[in-house]
């Protein structure tokens, strides 16, 4: 007998409140579906939790400092000597993860300011303004902490990339990229997706994830606020998932709830600063199709290797699945290439397990999206014109 399972958000939330929801991580569910079949698994499981913990460069935070007496309209703002945006209202700002500290200092940036704030550290605020009739003050030099500013929320325009490429280097010299240290003559290759645990590889067409989905964001509750920038749906699919960078999400979340354990200010040699963030997305098992897609394993998810020593025209050289990549070596034309991950699988697992605990304990309810993500998205290049 084929049972046509169909659950609703309300039914699942009811079970979560009663602490009776059955929750698996996207890793654990692979075996369950293999053992019991997708029908049975879909009946049994209510929620699958996913996770990823890696560099997400397009991240940053909105902050409101509160007014000093007399007040200032800040137009030039430094936080621990990192420039924050001065084009918002008087004491609002946005600090971006990749903004680097003012020279001659190095190795620190907006990402580190965000991590330090969440870790409870005091941050040096130095700001200047024009001095106007309503905001007479021209500068302020003080220290702030997360507790004593009004609002602080991450707003990341592009996070949790749905898959990504594999980087290698065919040239004769070591190159330093945002995909890490790439040794000469293809002595290594790096990859960056959490594969079978990665949020958007478990719901590849965003059947359940939408605008308003409540998520785990760096140890606090966050939301999917919009499609991410460079959202595209045109990438070739194998086993139902794209073989390269595809969909992305814009995420938002209150920094005051976050745990610095799930944030890392990064200083990537030869590139600059970035922010590693732990993000987890719960997937409600509404029916067996959703279950089927959550059962995808590393063996079934592929990524393409490209040569980062080429300035342009990086065509795919080979395709590997994540089980091969995670084994530590892949083969290319008979030659063994050692592999490194850029995102933390241990961290991804920690995120998925923590989110699972929250749901098990009835502390985290699912939020039904208020709007679907686009079904189609194409990437445009930048044209150079004279006018």
């Amino acid at each position: 007998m084929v049972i046509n399972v169909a659950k609703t958000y309300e039914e699942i939330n009811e079970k979560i409140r009663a602490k009776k929801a059955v929750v698996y991580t996207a890793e654990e569910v692979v075996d369950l579906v293999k053992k019991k079949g997708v029908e049975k698994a879909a009946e049994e499981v209510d929620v699958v939790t996913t996770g990823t913990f890696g560099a997400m460069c397009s991240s940053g935070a909105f902050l409101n400092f509160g007014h000093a007496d007399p007040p200032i309209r800040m137009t030039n703002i430094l936080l621990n000597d990192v420039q924050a945006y001065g084009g918002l209202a008087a004491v609002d700002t946005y600090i971006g993860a990749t903004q680097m500290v003012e020279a001659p200092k190095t190795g620190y940036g907006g990402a580190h300011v965000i991590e330090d704030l969440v870790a409870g550290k005091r941050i040096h605020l130095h700001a200047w303004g024009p001095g106007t009739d309503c905001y007479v003050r021209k500068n302020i030099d003080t220290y702030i902490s997360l507790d004593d500013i009004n609002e602080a929320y991450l707003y990341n325009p592009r996070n949790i990339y749905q898959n990504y490429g594999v980087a290698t280097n065919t040239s004769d010299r070591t190159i330093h990229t945002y995909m890490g240290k790439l040794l000469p003559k293809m002595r290594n290759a790096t990859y960056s997706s959490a594969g079978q645990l990665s949020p958007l590889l478990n719901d590849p067409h965003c059947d359940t994830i939408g605008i308003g989905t409540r998520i785990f964001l760096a140890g606090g509750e966050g939301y999917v606020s919009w499609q991410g920038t460079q959202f595209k749906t045109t990438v070739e699919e194998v086993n139902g998932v794209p073989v390269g960078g595809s969909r992305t999400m814009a995420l938002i979340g209150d920094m005051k709830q976050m745990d610095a354990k799930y944030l890392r200010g990064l200083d990537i040699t030869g590139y600059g600063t970035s922010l590693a963030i732990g993000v987890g997305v719960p997937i409600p098992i509404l029916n067996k199709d959703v279950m089927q897609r959550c059962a995808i394993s590393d063996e079934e998810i592929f990524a393409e290797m490209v040569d980062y020593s080429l300035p342009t025209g990086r065509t795919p050289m080979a395709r590997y699945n994540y089980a091969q990549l995670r084994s530590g070596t892949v083969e290319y034309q008979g030659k063994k290439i050692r592999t490194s991950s850029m995102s933390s699988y241990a961290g991804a697992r920690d995120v998925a397990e923590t989110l699972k605990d929250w749901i098990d304990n009835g502390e985290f309810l699912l939020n039904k999206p208020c709007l679907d993500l686009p079904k189609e998205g194409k990437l445009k290049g930048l044209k150079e014109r004279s006018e």
Partner: protein
Amino acid sequence: MECKYKIEFEEGAAQESVTYILVSEFSLKPNVLKAEIDGDGSGKMLISLKGEEDDIVEGMEKLKSMGFKVTEFEGHITHDMDRCFSCGACVSVCPTRSIYHDKGTWIVKINTGTCIGCGSCLGACSVKAINLVI
């Protein structure tokens, strides 16, 4: 057995004399892992010694009596597990495969016993979790 020592010296040409003494007088097999010598001839070297325990102990006593500063160490690398988030970026750049993922937990670990202190992993780590002792 095998032991590792940091040997610091004030004079030039110490590297040759140290290894010569250890080989000829104590039948030890020294392997210089790393040496740093300053312009004035002073410096330090990291050395791995294979041989009988008694010979190693006596060899080191001899070096001390000659004015060298001798310190035993286990690894010449430190790994800050609080900063490290087990991304794995350092794993494939280590020539001695001393950095690895624990197969069960996927936490990144360093085998200090096989690390030769080459420093290749330092620039690969974006949170500066790895540091060399020397």
